[in-house]
């Protein structure tokens, strides 16, 4: 599982403060803590705290890549902000994200190609959130076709089925899990799959239990990557165990430690 750490996000008050004061050390500390807990990449999001994301996102990118060469997941709904982040990035990047809307795909696919960035495609469009599996698959196919026609390598495309909060869309959970399994079958080579895990427990509780239960089910459905809180040790332990049960790693009595030694 490719773990993308979610904690550098202006939504969190201490990150918002650090962003406001351009306190590099606080951001770097958050980056290194996530990596030491197993993050393979870091999501970087200015969030609502930023008055000028065109300046703040590149600043965050530069601060983080001073202390790590892990890939950075540039998180913004605005293509212009993403473009600024890409310009500043020396590390590998993942664009987070495009929707299935034509005007976004037309900008972000060439941009991802130009910067050799991976790309997250949300199966959502201006009409709204998909209500079932078939709508997700339809939007996934649209993104995939557009990427393919644009000469973007499909193995670098991460499709996100849009994970809804459990207390909002309980009826959709099975559709989401099935969508994860079926996205992989849309093309050969397969696109990858990603979810923003914490969405599922927004407004519900206990967060951590809901998150890790869904994650293990998603892993069993073939999920490749998740944006999550790597500092939640029980969550990461559950992930490691789920992958062990799926025979992705060889068992030994210290398998949790063994995974972290990787």
């Amino acid at each position, binding site marked *: 599982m490719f773990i993308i750490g979610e904690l550098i996000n202006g939504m969190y008050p201490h990150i918002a403060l650090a962003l406001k004061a351009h306190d590099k050390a606080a951001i770097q500390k958050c980056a290194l803590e996530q990596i030491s807990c197993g993050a393979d990449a870091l999501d970087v999001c200015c969030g609502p705290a930023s008055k000028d994301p065109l300046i703040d996102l590149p600043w965050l990118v530069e601060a983080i890549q001073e202390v790590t060469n892990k890939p950075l997941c540039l998180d913004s709904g605005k293509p212009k902000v993403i473009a600024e982040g890409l310009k500043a990035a020396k590390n590998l990047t993942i664009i987070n994200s495009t929707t299935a809307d034509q005007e976004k795909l037309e900008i972000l696919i060439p941009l991802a190609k130009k910067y050799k960035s991976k790309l997250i495609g949300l199966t959502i469009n201006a009409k709204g959130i998909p209500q079932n599996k078939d709508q997700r698959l339809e939007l996934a196919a649209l993104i995939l076709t557009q990427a393919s026609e644009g000469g973007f390598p499909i193995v670098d495309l991460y499709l996100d089925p849009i994970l809804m909060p459990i207390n909002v869309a309980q009826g959709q959970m099975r559709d989401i899990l099935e969508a994860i399994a079926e996205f992989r079958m849309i093309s050969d080579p397969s696109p990858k799959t990603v979810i923003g895990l914490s969405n599922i427990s927004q407004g519900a509780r206990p967060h951590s239990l809901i998150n890790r239960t869904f994650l293990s089910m998603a892993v069993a459905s073939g999920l490749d990557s998740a944006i999550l809180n790597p500092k939640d040790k029980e969550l990461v332990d559950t992930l490691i165990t789920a992958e062990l049960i799926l025979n992705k*790693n*060889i*068992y*030994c*009595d*210290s398998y949790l*430690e*063994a995974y972290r*030694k*990787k």
Partner: protein
Amino acid sequence: METPLVLEKWPGVISTVTIGAKKEEGGSRGDTVKVGGQSTLPLLFKEGSIPHKPRIAFEISDIAPVDFEPELMTAYGQVVNDPLAWADTCVNKYKAELLCLKMQGTHPDFGNKSPETAAKFVSALLSRVKVPLIIIGSGDDVKDNLIMPACSEAAKGERCLIGCAVQDNYKTLVASVLADGHSIIAESPIDINIAKQLNILISDMGLNLERIVIDPTIGALGYGLEYAYSIMERARLAALSGDKTLASPFICFVGQEAWRTKEAKASPEQGIIWEALTATSLIQSGADLLVMRHPQAAGIVSNYIETLFKG
């Protein structure tokens, strides 16, 4: 139309273990032996890098051998009664690049030598021959914990490969190996889960994973070789996929297993063939170090390796 080869690209690589240290490295060996370092499965030269060939170590002991078949005794002759001269013969006559010394004479049933006597033998052997050494205990855990620290210390700085650590008895050996700058053999009973666990236990004591060689335990041809083969293959696949806790080279004690079989005992020629075939099969499952007994079998396998690696 020619069908293109499907080549796999692996993210992992097997660690490289160096045995022996030259004068400038703090030892006194004439040369060193490197094993491991592969980034692909055995012999798939087009798929990845295979920087080091499998190597043969001649098995000797600190006393006249106690479990050698008559054919093996005949092959070496009277020289086996003088272990230092036996070592000499392996190096000078049979061109051994590595010796595997078993401290058989320290076993309570075979002489019960003291740690001091054992250490003296190791020192004498290091002066007598200049090839790198693998040193293993007699297999009696309690006694090994007494004599192996002494043997390790006697060879301090020579970067030997020292064994065998097992899941229930590894701490003393790891401490010695750490203190004296050697590498270690981690032995597991044809069990990949234990092999992985033991590597973690050893590395938790501060010995780098890069200083471990796995003894997966093998069976001879006809006696469970395929079990060892599948364990080695599975460990290698995991290692190449990125599992560093299994990315160690393999050592296989071929001679002792092959000569135990009734087929090997049936006739001298058959014994040599049995040992050679057990070794060549294990090369194909990923063996990096082969500990062998019959000089002719070692010769056959050595030619086989040269032919395979000619490219």
